[in-house]
């Protein structure tokens, strides 16, 4: 399959890309920075996913080169607004919303146009347990993920007739750069609320996504799957 994953330079995105490359798929990754994966089955684009013109050009290149797109995984996310709402700057809030929500919207919109041609497609958006727990200090990040989940469900209704499914996967906390600014003690308290009170792994994320993108999952759409017993 031809798979686009956003935010592949590091963290979860990189691990997802490496897994799907090893599984024999053609992976097209993107991030603001340069590639950190080398493989004949990997193509990297240095791309700002909030730039509409750059996104259009990116998809034009994919269409001309591959003529298809099977899977889009909207993974790229930032949390630039980790503070009580009264201390969050406009720019921090806007950049978080732009990357986490608007970027995923632009990627999804153009991906659907390409997927429609083959009457097949899988869009997987990365949610967050933050939406369920509504933690103080995470208002903007949580709002961006809540918006993404709402879009996922409505988009699923609009594109099902084209053979495209849209789902979200919301993992428990996984070790990434996004966790660097979070108080470890506070994280422990949050994790204790989960049925599985420990850090999540990329493997459980991969397993879930692998199932969601399989042809057999053609009737699984408009869902948000929490991992780690959230």
């Amino acid at each position, binding site marked *: 399959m031809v798979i686009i994953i956003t935010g592949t330079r590091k963290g979860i995105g990189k691990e997802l890309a490496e897994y799907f490359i090893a599984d024999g798929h053609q992976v097209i990754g993107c991030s603001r920075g340069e590639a950190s994966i080398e493989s004949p089955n990997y193509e990297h684009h240095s791309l700002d996913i909030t730039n509409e013109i750059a996104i*259009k050009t990116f998809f034009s290149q994919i*269409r001309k080169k591959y003529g298809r797109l099977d899977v889009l995984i909207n993974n790229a996310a930032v949390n630039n607004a980790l503070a009580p709402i009264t201390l969050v700057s406009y720019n921090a809030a806007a950049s978080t919303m732009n990357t986490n929500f608007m970027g995923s919207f632009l990627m999804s919109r153009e991906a659907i*146009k390409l997927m*429609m041609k083959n009457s097949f497609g899988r869009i997987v958006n990365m949610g967050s347990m933050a939406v369920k727990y509504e933690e103080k200090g995470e208002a903007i990040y949580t709002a961006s993920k809540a918006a993404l989940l709402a879009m996922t469900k409505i988009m699923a209704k609009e594109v099902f007739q084209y053979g495209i499914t849209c789902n979200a996967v919301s993992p428990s906390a996984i070790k990434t750069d996004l966790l660097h600014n979070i108080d470890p003690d506070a994280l422990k308290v949050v994790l204790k609320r989960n049925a599985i009170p420990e850090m999540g792994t990329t493997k459980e994320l991969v397993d879930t996504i692998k199932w969601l993108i399989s042809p057999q999952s053609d009737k699984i759409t408009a869902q948000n799957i929490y991992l780690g017993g959230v």
Partner: protein
Amino acid sequence: MTKIEIEQAVIASFKQVITNSGKSYDGTVDTNTPIMGSESPFDSIDLVTFIVALEQMIEDDWLFSVTLADDRAMSQTISPFKTIQTISDYIELLIKEQQ
């Protein structure tokens, strides 16, 4: 490409969408044919397919990317998505701006 050629390309895309959707359309397809509304043979799926086909045609034939349903299109006094004529006019405008 002349205006007439643009119109012909749009009409060809229109007919292709009708054929692919398995519908039949008894009327003549010309520049006055509506692409939206109760008099159009298009349902919402056909309209989306049509717009995407036009965007890809522009990309292939004129080598630039465009989003037809952009903010400017939505704010036009006469919607570009009214008839084959209006969408052809809008495409012509976009092409001229690129030249």
